[in-house]
């Protein structure tokens, strides 16, 4: 069974979704993230959906649920990289991602996490992108 990898960088968990998400993989990601937040004490989660060419109601609801779960586990979630066509479609579908914070890209997402948690070890975008 395929899994979406979760990277641990300082106090942040970084998830970059690079596959066409089946419902099962989306739910598994939700469970994995809950466990990883508790195991690592992460204060922030960045979910990069740049590679997703659609977000349907199931994936949208999963993103909302992940944001809710991480909130009660004392972590902030930012969904980044939504494509314009995906945003247009999502709103027309009737989904507004309640409770989900968004940013245009990873860099702005990290900045948002750092602003919300000034004492957290939030990596720089260079650290995330690698050498």
């Amino acid at each position: 069974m395929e899994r979406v990898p979760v990277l641990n960088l300082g106090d942040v968990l970084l998830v970059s979704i690079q596959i066409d998400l089946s419902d099962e993989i989306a739910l598994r990601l939700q469970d994995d993230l809950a466990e990883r937040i508790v195991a690592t004490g992460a204060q922030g989660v960045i979910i990069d959906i740049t590679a997703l060419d659609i977000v349907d109601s199931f994936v949208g609801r999963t993103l909302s649920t992940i944001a809710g779960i991480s909130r009660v586990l004392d972590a902030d979630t930012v969904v980044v990289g939504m494509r314009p066509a995906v945003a247009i479609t999502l709103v027309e579908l009737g989904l507004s991602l309640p409770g989900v914070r968004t940013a245009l890209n990873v860099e702005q997402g990290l900045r948002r996490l750092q602003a919300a948690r000034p004492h957290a070890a939030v990596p720089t975008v260079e650290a995330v992108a690698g050498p």
Partner: protein
Amino acid sequence: MIEADRTRPADGIVRIAGDQDIVRVRQAVRSAAVEARLSLVDQTKVITAASELARNALTHGGGGRAELRGVSNGRRSGVRVEFVDQGPGITDLDAALTDGFTTGTGLGLGLSGARRLVDEFEIETAPGEGTRVTVVKWSR
């Protein structure tokens, strides 16, 4: 009214029997939408609508199939997808087409949301006789 030419064989049929088949339907609709020269936004809309309708066929209809066809009206090309299941059918169609109406655990956006994302939308259903949803998205 969509004239459904059922004498013509479908360009592609995707069986919907499990979770992974929803992904396969999306992939097949993506190829058809690219072939019909839909814009990126329209591709995204029809793929998303197909994802919702395939999931409906699976969760409410107990599975079924998606039949894809490239269509043309002389001026524009488009993609037509029919979702067929042999499930219990829909008793109250008006309610089923209302935002937020759900008999399952979802958000109730499947049918109503999918309808907003396509150019033509037709549904044939009767209690005990399954459901057939036909959608068309045209190039602009």
